[in-house]
């Protein structure tokens, strides 16, 4: 295996990175503080990064607080994920015109600038890869997603400050970025604030060479490895992922579904913050004269009653069945449908659940009764 090129940049080098991407006609997106949260938005400058901020997360709780250092990426993840840029919450798919009995359908073209993401976590790289599998790698390719995804420039940032709801070590999706990036940064705060940069693609190397950098030495590599290792030790949550597919398939009538349904508000927050949830629905609208029509695609959630609507009613009318659908899909039937788990261990669904439902706790509770059952025999 060829040695991965690793170099070191100073914190100020991030500004050059942003500018290098802007110069290459990317729409640069990254973390910034807004309305009490670290969100992903357009960056004009590295000064907009959440410098010196961190997030405190627990089931149903999210709060920003100041750090004692000037870390740029000293937080876990916020309510946003990159899917809002790759699979936007609302897009028009096509417009149609009808004149004298003929109908013309005009597909929407995507002429937007290519996207550059700065600050993509290891779990989020996996999240993007999970959505790629669904939207690009099946029999059919999603045209709009493909257009946004294919040239997206990804700057990953390894975690050193995981949140209280993180469990990427359990899902095998972090805390270190392993693939799917152009550049990967590790923030080092051992007295000298600096970033170790690993190159993941040719164009990543090309961008890195446009910045001021020096070759990484052994001290840098050791410090970076220690930061990531520290993150692995600080996971807020743990989950036994052994055969979750089988566990859930065997327990579709488990009493825990009733219990969790008594707490679940079926608000759908977990599906909106989840980086892999991909459900969408379409709305067909037409003008009153019947000349113009269009199709709009919107994020949908399996927590809505209409999600499973069949003429006459919903297939999943009860909150119990809708919660079960979400959890069994994410951790179980996703394997059947797409050959992998739908969960990346980012913990967003736990943090942003208004009643603090914790998927790791739910799955553990279901597994616990099976283990009790085994001991009895």
């Amino acid at each position, binding site marked *: 295996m060829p040695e991965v090129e690793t170099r070191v940049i100073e914190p100020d080098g991030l500004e050059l990175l942003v500018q290098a991407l802007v110069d290459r006609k990317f729409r640069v997106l990254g973390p910034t503080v807004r309305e009490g949260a670290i969100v992903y938005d357009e960056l004009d400058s590295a000064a907009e990064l959440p410098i010196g901020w961190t997030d405190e997360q627990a089931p149903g709780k999210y709060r920003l607080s100041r750090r004692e250092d000037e870390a740029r990426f000293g937080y876990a993840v916020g309510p946003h994920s990159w899917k809002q840029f790759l699979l936007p919450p609302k897009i028009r*798919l*096509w417009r*149609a015109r009808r004149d004298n*009995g*003929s*109908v013309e*359908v005009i*597909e929407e073209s995507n002429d937007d600038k290519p996207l550059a993401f700065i600050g993509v976590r290891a779990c989020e790289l996996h999240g993007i890869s999970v959505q*790629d599998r*669904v*939207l*690009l*790698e*099946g*029999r*059919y*390719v*999603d*045209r709009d997603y*493909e257009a946004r*995804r*294919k*040239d997206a420039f*990804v700057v990953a940032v390894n975690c050193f400050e995981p949140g209280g709801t993180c469990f990427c070590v359990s899902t095998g999706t972090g805390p270190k970025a392993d693939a*799917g*990036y*152009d550049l990967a940064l590790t923030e080092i705060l051992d007295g000298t604030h600096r970033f170790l940069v690993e190159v*993941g*693609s040719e164009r990543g190397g090309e961008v890195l060479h446009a910045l001021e950098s020096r070759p990484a030495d052994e001290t840098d590599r050791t410090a970076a490895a220690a930061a990531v290792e520290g993150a692995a030790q600080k996971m807020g949550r743990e989950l036994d992922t052994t055969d979750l597919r089988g566990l859930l398939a065997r327990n*579709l*009538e488990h009493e825990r579904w009733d219990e969790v349904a008594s707490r679940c508000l079926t608000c759908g927050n977990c599906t909106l913050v989840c980086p892999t949830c991909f*459900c*969408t*629905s*379409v709305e*067909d*609208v*037409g*003008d009153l004269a*019947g000349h*113009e029509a269009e199709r709009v695609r919107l994020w*949908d959630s*399996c927590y809505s009653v209409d*999600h*499973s*609507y*069949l*003429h*006459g009613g919903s*297939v*999943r009318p009860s909150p*119990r*069945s809708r919660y*079960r*659908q979400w959890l*069994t*899909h994410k951790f179980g*039937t996703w394997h*059947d*449908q797409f050959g992998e788990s739908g969960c990346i261990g980012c913990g967003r669904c736990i943090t942003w659940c208004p009643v603090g439902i914790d998927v790791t706790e739910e799955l553990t509770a279901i597994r616990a009764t099976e283990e009790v059952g085994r001991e009895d025999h």
Partner: protein
Amino acid sequence: MATALQAEPRAAEAPQPFRVRTRRRETHDTWTLRLEPVDGVGLDVRPGQFTMVYSFGVGEVPISFSGDPRGPLVHTVRAVGAVTRAICDARRGAVLGIRGPFGNEWPVAEAAGGDVVVVAGGIGLPPLRPALYEILRRRRDFRDVALLYGARTPDDLVFRRELERWRARGDLQVEVTVDAAVEPWRGKVGVVPKLIEGARFDPAATTAFIVGPEIMMRFSAQALLDRGVPPSCIFVSMERNMQCGVGHCGHCQLGPTLICRDGPVYRWDVLVPLLTAREL
């Protein structure tokens, strides 16, 4: 970053304009439309597959193909909601949008050499008709073939003239029953599973295709199992909220499967665990 991409099959996202060539009334709420592509390029639709049918500005619904696989695109539509009503109202010459075809097909070829029992309930006959056309085209490849069809009342029966023609062939058992009838109906009154009890087929060498309301399919499959047909030889067509047709929108999930991708035709032994879990 770049990802390896596959070619996109035609007509996946934007509806292709199709013109209504003929429109025939089947019952008080059901119509059969024969459609032809405005741009001249037809579709190759297999028995069991469906397309997404779009009514301009109103909406889009999944409709099973009900025609001859060697013929034009034919759909038989029951007006149960705003979109299906608009489709049924489409007059000769009107333009509808079509995406697809999507989904898998009836295992007609695999059934050759044995008996075939086709069980239809209500508007379940149209999705089975393409399979019947294929079977009848190569009738000698099969032994006994039965069509068992149930509907609510005699007025709800579709394809009536064709049923008479099939009955007259002599090489196809056609049994029709209704849930209730008034005169002049002189046919059977009772449920479809009862037809299965009386039909002529060798259970050990039979392939069964069932389409109808989910409960009717459950009872019919049970009647077939009671007669000794192996569960792996029973196939049914399922319906959920199919929207995108291409496995991207998540609406038509049935447990570990996506109906638009892995269905709509399912083998009974695969389907049973999914049907018995409530609200799956």
